[in-house]
């Protein structure tokens, strides 16, 4: 008898648990049922004796199982409360700021990852030394061509110069460079005097003294473009040896990205002492980089300056000023921000002034929160515009580029302009009490049917604080939107009064 009745009761109890589980939201049902089945096992184990049927014990177990309905209902209510919390976040000020902050973090992270953005900052941080000129000749196409032989350069350097206090020489040649045992290619190699980098004022980055195992080898400085293109921006490149033509050379470091492109734009620079420059292809012409003295700078504006060799003026050479100062992303951004602020009134007729149907006014705390929210939105939009414009400008460009700077300016301007416009329009549709966007737009009246009566769109705050009336045709008596503050008699219409 017991072997039949006890399983029947057990099946009934389990069916009660399964029935109750249907009340539990589906996502939590499995775990809920697992807990109740485990508890049921322990209750049965403690109450029911398999050898005898006890009505009282079965009643207790059934009462325990019936309690699962109360628990299931509780689970359902809790899930509903959570859902309402999510709904209350919808279109709230917090949600808006969180989305903007998320976008800002995304844009900033992307900007940090793009090599072009890093190169742009590099350009600004390491500008070419001011008051430098390149002495060369110009061809018919206004291209700078090498015009100075090393012998002439030596003569200039050994003579007193009124207008220059530093002179450096380089000449270029296309040579086969073996980057490794398996990789080689033709590169533009500049053979330069050892003072060239100091004269240009460019720090040789990634110079690793510890890795310099063989100091007797000639030093090679890579251009930024070659470092990124041929060495994959490897930070541990210094100290490696490469074969340039017939000679083995040691990589001493990498030049920072620069907005100035030297004539013939060498891929790598071999810094050699004067004696070596004098012996190798002595008659090959090169370029001279010269730093102007104060007298030279003044003279540049008023007269032609000349190079003196033992008291005699040298024949004419062309001196082209090196302009290595990039505007930089920040200065471009500030300019675009200024332009956007000027253009903003042209693209939006919205003003922050507004009227109200009633005499009710929001408290000073609500007003303060409203202005702070607008300030936070504008600040976040401005930050997003800065990083997003960098992302747009440099997502396919690996180094400094004037086109990228122009793209950045345009993107900055447009993002700031339309971002600020959105922030103002969004603000106009937020309830002054809870800063939630008003919803449920309803058309009221038709212009063709109401001659002097009001027609437009009416929207309501989901918290039940306000109604917003926006006229469809601004008139002299109803030109701007108006808020209607609702009193407590409206509260019964709104489900969630905690908003």
């Amino acid at each position: 008898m017991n072997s039949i009745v006890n399983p029947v009761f057990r099946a009934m109890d389990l069916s009660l648990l399964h029935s109750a589980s249907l009340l539990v939201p589906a996502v939590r049902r499995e775990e809920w049922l697992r807990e109740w089945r485990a508890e049921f096992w322990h209750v049965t184990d403690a109450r029911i004796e398999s050898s005898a049927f006890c009505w009282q014990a079965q009643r207790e177990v059934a009462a325990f199982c019936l309690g699962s309905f109360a628990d299931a209902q509780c689970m359902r209510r809790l899930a509903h409360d959570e859902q309402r919390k999510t709904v209350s976040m919808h279109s709230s000020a917090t949600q808006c700021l969180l989305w903007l902050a998320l976008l800002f973090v995304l844009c900033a992270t992307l900007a940090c990852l793009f090599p072009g953005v890093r190169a742009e900052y590099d350009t600004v941080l390491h500008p070419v030394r001011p008051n430098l000129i390149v002495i060369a000749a110009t061809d018919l196409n206004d291209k700078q061509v090498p015009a100075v032989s090393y012998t002439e350069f030596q003569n200039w350097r050994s003579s007193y110069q009124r207008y220059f206090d530093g002179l450096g020489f380089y000449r270029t040649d296309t040579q086969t460079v073996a980057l490794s045992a398996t990789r080689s290619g033709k590169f533009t190699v500049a053979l330069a005097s050892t003072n060239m980098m100091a004269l240009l004022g460019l720090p040789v980055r990634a110079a690793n003294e510890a890795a310099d195992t063989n100091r007797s080898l000639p030093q090679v400085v890579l251009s930024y473009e070659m470092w990124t293109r041929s060495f994959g921006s490897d930070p541990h490149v210094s100290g490696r040896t490469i074969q340039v033509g017939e000679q083995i050379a040691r990589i001493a470091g990498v030049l920072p990205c620069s907005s100035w492109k030297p004539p013939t734009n060498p891929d790598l620079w071999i810094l050699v002492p004067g004696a070596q420059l004098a012996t190798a292809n002595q008659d090959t012409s090169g370029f001279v980089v010269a730093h102007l003295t104060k007298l030279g700078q003044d003279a540049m504006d008023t007269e032609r300056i000349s190079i003196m060799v033992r008291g005699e003026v040298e024949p004419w050479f062309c001196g082209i000023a090196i302009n290595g100062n990039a505007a930089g992303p920040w200065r471009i951004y500030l300019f675009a921000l200024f332009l956007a602020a000027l253009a903003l009134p042209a693209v939006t007729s919205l003003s922050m002034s507004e009227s109200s149907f009633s005499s009710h006014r929001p408290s000073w705390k609500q007003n303060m929160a409203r202005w702070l929210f607008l300030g936070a939105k504008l600040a976040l939009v401005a930050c997003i515009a800065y990083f997003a414009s960098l992302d747009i400008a440099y997502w396919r460009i690996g180094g400094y580029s004037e086109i990228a700077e122009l793209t950045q300016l345009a993107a900055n301007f447009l993002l700031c302009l339309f971002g600020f416009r959105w922030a103002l329009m969004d603000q106009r549709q937020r309830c002054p009490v809870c800063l939630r966007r008003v919803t449920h737009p309803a058309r009221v009246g038709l212009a063709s049917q109401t001659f002097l009566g009001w027609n437009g769109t009416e929207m309501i705050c989901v918290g039940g604080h306000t109604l917003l009336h926006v006229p469809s045709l601004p008139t002299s008596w109803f030109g701007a939107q108006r808020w209607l503050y609702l009193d407590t008699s409206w509260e019964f219409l709104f489900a969630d009064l905690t908003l």
Partner: protein
Amino acid sequence: MAAETKLSHTAAMILQAIHAGYVYGFSIMEVTGLPSGTVYPAMRRLERDELIRSQWERQSIADAEQRPPRKYYKLAAAGKTALESSRKRYPLLERLFPAEETQQV
């Protein structure tokens, strides 16, 4: 949840029971004398308010004892604070239950 929140007598009893070492639903029912329809919903609310935390027992322990794994509850930091303030409100609460050895989870 604020530490100063006033708990109902039922919730305070459940917190005290968990504190005394009765760490799963059925043992709390047994020691408090409350029905399952009261204990489990109360524990859900306490968990929602982060006064207690739940954790499933390891399957290996349950398998060794040839029974299904239990869901154990323990007091969170906020729960301990709430229990302290409830003891001031219900002075006899502390004497209600004898301490039980804490289960190994």
